[in-house]
Each structure stands twice: as C-alpha cells, then as structure tokens.
C-alpha cells in the first residue's frame, strides 16, 4: 500500500539531512512528523521546518570539519613556504660556494657556473661540513665536496 502523500513529502525532506544525522534521529523524526500530522499540523510546515534544519545541519561547521580545515590550511602553508625554501637551499649554497671560491682568488673557480653544484643537504648541513682546502679542487674548478 502506498504511503500517504504528506508522510512521503516529509520522508523525502528527511533525506536531505546528512547520513550521520539520519542514523541518529531519522526514525524519531519520522515518528514525530506522523504524530504532528495526525494532530492537524500542516505537512508542508513540518517539511519546511525539516528542510530548514537540514540546510543548517549541512552548513554548520562541525568540530571534525574545523579540524580538517585547519589541517588543510597548515598543509597548504607548509607547502607554500617549504617549496621556495627548498628551492633556495638548493640554489643559494651553490652561489655561496662560488663566492667563497672567488674570494680565494682562484681564477679557475671564477669561471664555474653558479648552478653547477647544487647543495642537496641544505644550508645547516653545508655549514657543518668542513671547508675543503683549495688544493682539493679539480682542474675545472669543481670542488671534491660535490
């Protein structure tokens, strides 16, 4: 036997709620709607109230969603700051090494391209490494530490 039309309308509107809400209140809400309709409350106003509630439920930020949004923002911040820093750490030490060599008046090293020796260890690790003596340099001015 098909359900009466008002109950069907409320049932359709209740599907607008998130699954979590329906799992918790769905049966209770359908029962309440049936009782209110029996009391003479217009089904349209009940459906409208549920529709309004469903919209609020979907739009209201929940604690979990807030946490996820914060995590996503943090990840985006780390990526946006970390990527340029990683690029800098890959390029700056090479130019710094070049400047260091040129201070020693090594003419062969002066001809060395700036990006020939990228430092993959980053600035702190590079500073911790001992500076190689000038005699270690190869004929083309490329240091052994590379």
């Amino acid at each position: 036997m098909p359900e009466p039309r008002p109950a069907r309308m409320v049932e359709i509107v209740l599907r607008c709620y998130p699954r979590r809400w329906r799992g918790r209140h769905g049966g209770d809400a359908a029962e309440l709607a049936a009782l209110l309709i029996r009391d003479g409350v217009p089904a349209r106003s009940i459906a409208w109230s549920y529709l309004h509630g469903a919209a609020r439920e979907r739009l209201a930020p929940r604690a979990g969603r807030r946490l996820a949004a914060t995590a996503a923002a943090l990840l985006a911040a780390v990526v946006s700051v970390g990527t340029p820093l990683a690029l800098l750490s890959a390029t700056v030490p090479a130019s710094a090494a070049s400047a260091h060599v040129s201070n020693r008046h090594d003419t062969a090293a002066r001809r060395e391209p700036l990006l020939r020796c990228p430092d993959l260890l980053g600035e702190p690790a590079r500073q911790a490494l001992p500076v190689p003596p000038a005699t270690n340099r190869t004929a083309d001015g490329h240091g052994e530490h590379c």
Partner: protein
Amino acid sequence: MAAGKSRRDDAAGQDVLRRAGDASVLILTSLADGPKHGYALIQDIKGFAGLQLGPGTLYGALDRLEQLGLAEALPTEDRRHPYRITPAGATALRTHLDSLERVSAVGRLRLQLGGI
C-alpha cells in the same frame, strides 16, 4: 581594564544559554521536570509558552544542547529518543532564568518610573 574584561568574560561564561537561542531555553525549561521525547517536548512548550516549535528547530536545538553537555539522550524507547536535562543544564538554566528575572525587574521598574 584587564580585570574588567576578565569579569565580563566570566559573566558571559556562566550564562551559557545567553547565546544558545530561545528554543534551547524552552527545551531545557520543559526538561526541568523530567525526561521527554520530541513530541512531548513540542506539546509541553506549546502549553506553557504558546509556541509551536518546528521539528527541525527542535532537533537542531537538542543537538546543540547535547554538544554543550546541557542535555542528554536516554536509550531509545520504540523509535523515540527521550532526552533529559543534565546537572550542568540545570545550573545553566537557573543562571539564565536569574538573569532574565533581573532584566524583567529592571524593565518593569523603568516602565513604572517612566509612567508608560
């Protein structure tokens, strides 16, 4: 200045129902004399406040009260969830009603003094 701000924050913190909405206050008032399910809450509120709460509003307010720890759901009877007020809910309701009483008293006094 800092002390004043702190006092203000404390006062706002005590009356947690101030921003919870009228539906929350009506529901807690209805639950104050014992647990009720959704239909009984709507009927009771209609009786003492002359206001028919929409079922969507009712469930939204009940969820908010549960999140605040002011009301809690009891085990399901049939398909119905009865709710009851928690001790924190009773304290919050008392505080809020005291605040409303103060405002009401001042309002009545001023209306008298104003001769309106």
